């Protein structure tokens, strides 16, 4: 089992407020890692630290290392644009651009220049197939992405993310705006995607973490309380706090 990402003594601050405290854990390649924990414990902050989306917040500051294939993403010589291409992200609320389905999925390859004009239709089709959406939208590639239902929009955002051929996909509560059936769709899709990609998902649903992930990390007030195999963590938690949280007595 290869480590795709290694987190070493990682701290994160918003101004004087320390949002993440001394994180140390691995993220295993081609597997699904779920992060759980109560609201405000720093799950999103950690996710956005990996692809450096927090750079846009002026008061934010990181300390320690997040190694992607052994290379610290906070090193001086890291090209943030290239980093974000390698580490894609799917957001809590589906965020299609107000453009056509095709233009949405083609957006990444276009701006990054990873596909020529002739290759684009193929890339778009492959990405939409990869996101299990092709059959539903193949006849409306030219219509606005805003006309899709939320579940389809979220899968289109996943297609948009995989169109730039990332290595890691970060998902921040990707199902919170979806109904149960669309949620199952996305979970099946994650399982499928984990063959080719390393996936990190933040979720508020214990069931989802238990169902859909291989590894689980439990965050509490900026600290990683427990990390382990999902089955192990849910059936035999080592920390009392973890047990209290997953059984619903805490949080």
């Amino acid at each position, binding site marked *: 089992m290869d480590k795709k990402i290694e987190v070493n003594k990682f701290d994160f601050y918003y101004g004087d407020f320390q949002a993440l405290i001394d994180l140390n854990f691995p993220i295993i390649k081609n597997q699904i890692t779920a992060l759980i924990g109560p609201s405000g414990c720093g799950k999103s902050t950690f996710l956005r630290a990996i692809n450096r*989306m927090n750079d846009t917040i002026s008061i934010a500051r990181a300390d320690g290392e997040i190694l992607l294939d052994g290379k610290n993403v906070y090193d001086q010589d890291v090209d943030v644009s*290239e980093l*974000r291409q390698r580490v894609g992200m799917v*957001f809590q*609320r589906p965020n299609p651009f*107000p453009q*056509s389905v095709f233009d949405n999925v083609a957006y*990444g390859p276009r701006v*990054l220049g990873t596909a020529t004009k002739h290759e684009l239709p193929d890339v778009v089709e492959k990405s939409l197939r990869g996101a299990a959406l092709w059959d539903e939208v193949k006849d409306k590639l030219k219509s606005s992405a805003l006309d899709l239902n939320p579940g389809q929009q979220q899968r289109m955002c996943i297609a948009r993310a995989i169109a730039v051929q990332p290595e890691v996909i970060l998902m921040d509560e990707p199902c919170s705006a979806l109904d149960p059936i669309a949620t199952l769709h996305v979970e099946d899709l994650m399982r499928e995607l984990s063959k080719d990609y390393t996936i990190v998902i933040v979720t508020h649903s214990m069931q989802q973490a238990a169902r859909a992930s291989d590894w689980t990390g439990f965050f509490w007030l900026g600290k990683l309380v427990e990390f382990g195999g999902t089955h192990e963590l849910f059936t035999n938690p080592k920390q009392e706090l973890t047990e209290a949280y997953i059984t619903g007595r805490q949080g």
Partner: protein
Amino acid sequence: MTAQQGVPSPLPVDEAPPRPKREIVIEAFIRVAGVSTIIIIILIFAFLLKEGLPAFFKVSITGLLARRWYPIEDMFGLLPLLVGSLLVTVGAVVIAVPLGLTTAVFLGELAPPWLREILKPVIEVLAGIPSIVLGFLGWVVLAPAIQNMGAPTGLTAFTGSLILAYMALPTIISITEDALYAVPKEYRDGSLALGATHWQTIYKVVLPAARSGIVIAIMLGIGRAIGETMAVMLVTGNAANIPSLSDGLYFQPVRTLTATIAAEMGEVASGSLHYNVLFAIGIVLFVITFLINSLATWIIGGNGGRRRGGQI
């Protein structure tokens, strides 16, 4: 319209409680205001048609499209005036739109917050400068400067374009910046997370998403400028001639449609042919404005930036 108060309510009395008197009065007032506004607009238009339409028959379309405007000898060719308006307005658009958009992008996306806090109110104050003051500045400062550059006179189409552009700029900048601000953060995040740079994000996501707001900004800015008459009259030299390409298109005096009405309306005898033709010019202006508005609606209504984001 107080009679309306006596009209029985259409709802069964035992279901709806009696409506407070205040509400009935307010509603009646709003209705009167709304209806009378529409009536006034219709009356204005009817008056314009009544006074202007005869000109189209008496002078004939070919007469109106002739190249010479010389009312004293009953020569009513509108072409020089049309060309004058076109030159001045197109010049203003060409100057104001790129300048306004880039300034708005700088303010909204690139400038540090403290600079934006200073510049935004300053620009809004500029929008409040009375246009005649700008015309005066154009006459005293701009025209001599342009003459120094080698034009035979400083009162030219170009001078008019500059003044109009300056008048349109604050509106374009301020409303475009609002439209950029209204673009949801999720769009930017989505683009950045794919590896797009800040600039690519602005260019490919933020600007298109704000498109309808930007079109409105341009329309309002240019609208303010087109309707403006006096300032333009001061600086364009007011010669009803068609500038020739060979003599430097933009560096010759012109006269606009609006300036013609303003300059001559005071001197014509009511009901004379000249008088009718001035109203006909009003109709022409009306049609032009209508076409431009339709164009803008069409641009805004196209697919893309609808429903979410960017609209104001």
